[in-house]
């Protein structure tokens, strides 16, 4: 099946044809020469050090390629010389906007190897904190989306309302960005007094924030004309490139690890919905994330009502030695599927850790999605694919 046979948006198809023409024009060295534009590594739009090499014909992109690695910190290697409890403080810093969610799959992998399971109360609180970090992460995305398109007001609303969530995370864990709260076999501490009531009030505020963003941004005609039909990623392309998370669901694939993948977590205790969108364009990706934030507030609300009593720590030895073996655990993180493949040789630390982070795969579709679009669309498509630099480079 050729590319043009696939169901693409009209504009995307026209842009693709135009890019073919532009390419041909460049190849026969007629008329004008193309221009290579290096967007980044230092550029206000890339919120980090991502470099995008774009070959332009006028304002149209002939081809573009993201070049990553400017922020590589070598966490996989560093994890080999740390003990298991120490690794959480490293992986906190992978997706720095939703730190707690990074700890969970690693801890779950270690627990799987040790064959312990956190007590139900710990599972509940883990899930609540996991969803809170998702809300903190995605609410900032929703605001940042406006800035990428020149609307400066939404981002301030996002920062204001994310602050409430960060305060909650700080209240429970002691850390705003890097909680380092998850332990093998449970959690470091129980919830503080009054935290549950406060969280419920904040969830209400966050739902208001979602409504506000929907009014201010998603309902705006200019926003829609900038995102609808732009950067269409069809279903099979999304699957081929290994997209995950909201990017995949926006292409119409009903896939959510929280629902599909049985883990010792509390998601199945709540009633919530996995949102998908058939279009696969930038708007769909943003819209799915907005709906997900709402669902997350619902999950948190329901789990707060049903927290069981009991211990928050299972019986684990003081000095943790993980028995020999290999384990793979992945969860549905704010950015998509994040997993750890942990190889243990029965020592204090892991022998090898492979980190599968969502952004690296999500960004790999960029050369496909950016072909033929205009320069401003580079920014909106990358913004809607939503990557965190720490999550790309690890």
């Amino acid at each position, binding site marked *: 099946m050729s590319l043009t046979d696939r169901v693409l948006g009209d504009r995307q198809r026209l842009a693709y044809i135009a890019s073919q023409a532009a390419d041909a024009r460049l190849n026969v060295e007629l008329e004008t020469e193309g*221009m290579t*534009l290096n967007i980044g590594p230092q*550029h*206000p*739009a890339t919120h980090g050090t991502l470099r995008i090499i774009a070959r332009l014909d006028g*304002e149209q992109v002939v081809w573009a390629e993201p070049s990553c690695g400017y922020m590589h910190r070598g966490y996989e290697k560093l994890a080999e010389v740390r003990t298991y409890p120490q690794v959480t403080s490293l992986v906190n810093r992978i997706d720095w906007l939703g730190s707690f969610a990074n700890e969970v799959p690693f801890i779950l992998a270690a627990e799987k190897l040790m064959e312990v399971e956190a007590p139900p109360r710990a599972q509940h609180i883990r899930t609540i904190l996991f969803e809170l970090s998702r809300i903190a992460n995605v609410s900032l995305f929703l605001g940042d989306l*406006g*800035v*990428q*398109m*020149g*609307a*400066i*007001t939404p981002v*301030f*609303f996002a920062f*204001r309302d994310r602050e409430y969530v960060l305060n909650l995370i700080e209240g429970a864990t002691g850390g705003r960005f890097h909680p380092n709260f998850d332990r093998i076999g449970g959690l470091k501490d129980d919830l503080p007094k009054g935290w549950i009531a406060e969280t419920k009030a904040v969830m209400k505020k966050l739902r208001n924030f979602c409504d506000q963003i929907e009014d*201010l*941004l998603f309902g*705006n005609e*200019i*926003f829609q*004309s*900038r995102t609808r039909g732009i950067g269409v990623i069809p279903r099979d392309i999304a699957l081929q490139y290994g997209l995950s998370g909201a990017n995949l669901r926006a292409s119409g694939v009903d896939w959510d690890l929280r629902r599909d993948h049985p883990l010792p977590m509390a998601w199945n205790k709540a009633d919530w919905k996995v949102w998908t969108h058939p279009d696969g364009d930038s708007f769909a990706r943003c819209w799915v994330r907005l709906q997900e934030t709402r669902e997350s507030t619902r999950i948190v609300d329901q789990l707060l009502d049903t927290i069981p009593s009991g211990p928050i720590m299972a019986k684990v030895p003081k000095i943790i030695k993980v028995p020999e073996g290999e384990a793979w655990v992945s969860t549905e993180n704010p950015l998509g599927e994040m997993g750890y493949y942990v190889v243990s040789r029965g020592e204090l630390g892991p022998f090898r850790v492979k980190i599968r982070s969502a952004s690296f795969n999500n960004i790999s579709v960029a050369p496909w999605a950016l072909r033929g679009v*205009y*320069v*401003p*669309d*580079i*920014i909106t498509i990358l913004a809607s694919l939503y990557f965190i630099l720490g999550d790309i480079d690890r």
Partner: protein
Amino acid sequence: MMSMLAVEVPYWGQSLLRVLGGIVAVLLPAGTIVYVFLFKMMSFMQSRLGPMEAGPYGSLQLVAEVGKWLQKEDIVPERADARIFKMAPIVVLLSTFLLIAVVPFGPDAWFTDFEVGIFYALAVSSLSVLGILMAGWSSANKYSLLGGLRAAGQLIAYELPMVLAVIGVIIQAGTMNLQQIVIAQNSGSMFGFSGLGNPYVITQFVGFVVFMIAIQAELTQAPFDMPIAESELVSGYMTEYSGFRFLIFFIGEFATAGVFSLIASVLFLGGWGVPFAWFGWTDVDSVANWMNIVGPIIMITKMMLVAFIIMWVRFSYPRFREDQLQRFAWKVLIPVSLANIALTSIFKVVM
């Protein structure tokens, strides 16, 4: 301007007063817009306080900012065309100063009484394109170049709807002189009722809307801020500028916003005047002398009103893409303003 003073002033004195008046009329609106709207209103809309430390309620923030820019090094990139690079911001500011020359502030308070004032104003307003193109080209920077070219395309495209929107007013007033347009609005009447005069914002509402959209684009404010587009082009044609020259661009941006607001209030909101029927005036000669003092105050008030709309839109809208922007100008604004001209001419002839 001079007949309002009771004393005879020699010619050089008159010229000096005009120059000083021009500088005040350009810089005062710029400063007011920056402080009131850019610093404070934007902050309140975004649920924050804005500057609060410099002076009471942050009122000296502007002075601090200017001081900061003046201290910075005046950098010219190595590959840049130095002479043109240095000249560009001045050309941009120049067009603003040329614009203010025809704006009337009172029955006798004007810089020049120009017969084809609005024609002149529209002509010199497009001079700023030259400055922007010069800046974009001479910076030897790809982002600057893209920004400069976008600005040129956009400013030329939106010049046309602006001119066409103004033509409706000219047809209705029957003159191109801005002073005469003000008088025509204030001495006019709507259906025999002269209590409000005849501000053209009512009869020329379509023209007003088109004009506002066009000046939004001329000023490169969001949603038409493609040439600057900080999330794509870093800072567009201003990327390489620093210090004093950046400050001139900055002043130019907001001074032009102020002057265009002044022109919009002259064309559509009745300018410096109050409806003449209130005080029983019949023409410009019978207008009381105190209007020379009250007139500028009324003008500043109306300017703030128009600038408020410009800034309000700027703070809440995302920006267009370049091709959407052109399509909007050619496919929507120009046909609408042409229809407006046709209707206005028909009514003018019939009534």
